């Protein structure tokens, strides 16, 4: 029963370490994109501080989105996905393992890097803890939601940016609550409200996403 779960989790982490870049990549993307912002906008610390919460969250969302595209891609291309579908193990558990691996490889490092980038964008001190907390839960939600989209588009030649189209509307609540958690903290308001909502989103997507993704994969493959 749990054999599939741990086998997949372990293999995905092994694969990520094997192509060393894979772990560093979303993080570096996040880093570089955030440095693009001052170049495009303004180097002034005070103006950067104003937009820092929103920019950090938008860019973390993009980094997560772009990496979720590959979630089932390589398994599909080499036939592993077909094999997983005819494995006598519950598919939703295997999906959950893949999502967990994705979060460990992407969401967690992003969360840990965020304070450094906050510093570079002159984020006020009050914002750091809420930033980390909201990203910690938020990136997990993003991975879970993204998996559904990745499952739906996996068999399409050139899923590419189509995935963005499908997934982004679903990402919006996460972005709104995530960014406003940080913004409220910076403005001196309490943040347990939005954080609680984020927790609820996480619980909800944990319940829904593995089944929806499993269904999406079945549809994609039997097409």
């Amino acid at each position, binding site marked *: 029963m749990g054999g599939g779960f741990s086998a997949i989790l372990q293999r995905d982490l092994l694969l990520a370490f094997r192509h060393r*870049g894979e772990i560093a990549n979303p993080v*570096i993307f996040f880093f570089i994109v955030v*440095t693009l912002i001052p170049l495009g906008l*303004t*180097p*002034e*610390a005070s103006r950067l501080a104003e937009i820092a919460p929103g920019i950090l969250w938008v860019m973390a969302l993009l980094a997560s989105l772009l990496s979720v595209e590959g979630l089932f891609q390589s398994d599909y291309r080499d036939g592993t996905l077909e094999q997983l579908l005819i494995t006598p193990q519950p598919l939703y558990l295997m999906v959950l393992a893949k999502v967990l691996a994705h979060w460990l490889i992407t969401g967690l490092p992003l969360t840990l890097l965020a304070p450094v980038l906050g*510093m570079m964008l002159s984020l006020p001190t009050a914002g750091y803890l809420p930033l980390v907390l909201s990203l910690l839960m938020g990136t997990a939600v993003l991975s879970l939601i993204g998996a559904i989209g990745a499952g739906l588009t996996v068999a399409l030649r050139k899923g590419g940016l189509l995935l963005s189209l499908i997934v982004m509307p679903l990402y919006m609540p996460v972005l709104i609550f995530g960014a406003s958690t940080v913004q409220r903290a910076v403005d001196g308001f309490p943040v347990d409200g939005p954080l609680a909502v984020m927790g609820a989103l996480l619980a909800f997507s944990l319940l829904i996403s593995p089944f929806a993704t499993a269904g999406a994969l079945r549809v994609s493959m039997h097409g």
Partner: protein
Amino acid sequence: MWQWFHRLGSPRWFYNTSGKWLPWLSVLAAILLSLGVVWGLGFAPQDAKQGNSFRIIYIHVPASFLALAGYYVMAISGAVGLIWKMKLADMVMKSAAPIGAVLTFVALVTGAIWGKPTWGTYWVWDARITSMLVLFFLYLGVIALQYSYTSQDAASKASAVLSLVGMVNIPIIYKSVDWWYTLHQPATIRLTEAPSMHPDMFHPLLVMILGFYCFYAVALILNTRVEILYRERRTRWVQDMVLETPVSEIREGQN
């Protein structure tokens, strides 16, 4: 001339020659660096405006110099490797990348630390600082490419192409970042334009810069030598040389 060039291209020749130079260079680097550090930390007068935090300059500026110079070392040796298919140049390029990246990192970190007492913040989007950050990314790109290829030959060529493209771009990047910064003319404090420095402050800086150059050479040679050993590990001369290594290391080899 060509014979000389080819001999220079021989890893084995380089290994032997650099082995003779290395001790002298290391000693020189150590002397210069310790002299510079003691002088800079203890004996240079303190800055009128910045007080003692100014002493960070003795690392910050040499590291920044070498970070930039290191990129040219890397790109030029990459070009030599690409054009003349000189294996040694490829190895120098591969070794230069992480050293340059580390020195860039040192420049960034010391600068950031210096920023706190001076500007009250660890980071500002100053033109030079931003360019330095971009340089850091360029280095990371080359390193990442090096490690992404499985074939060493392809990795060398690919990162040579990238570092060449990067080298062409560095002046453009610097100019554009400079222009971007002057365009915005932000209200924040600008970097102290090296005020006509008092000789008592300047001399230790000079010593440190020289020391960093020597240190860079030592690090580069050390890394290149290991790279040579690694790539030639199956050749006769490396096998023979290993047999002559000190007993202590052989004993390590047993377990």
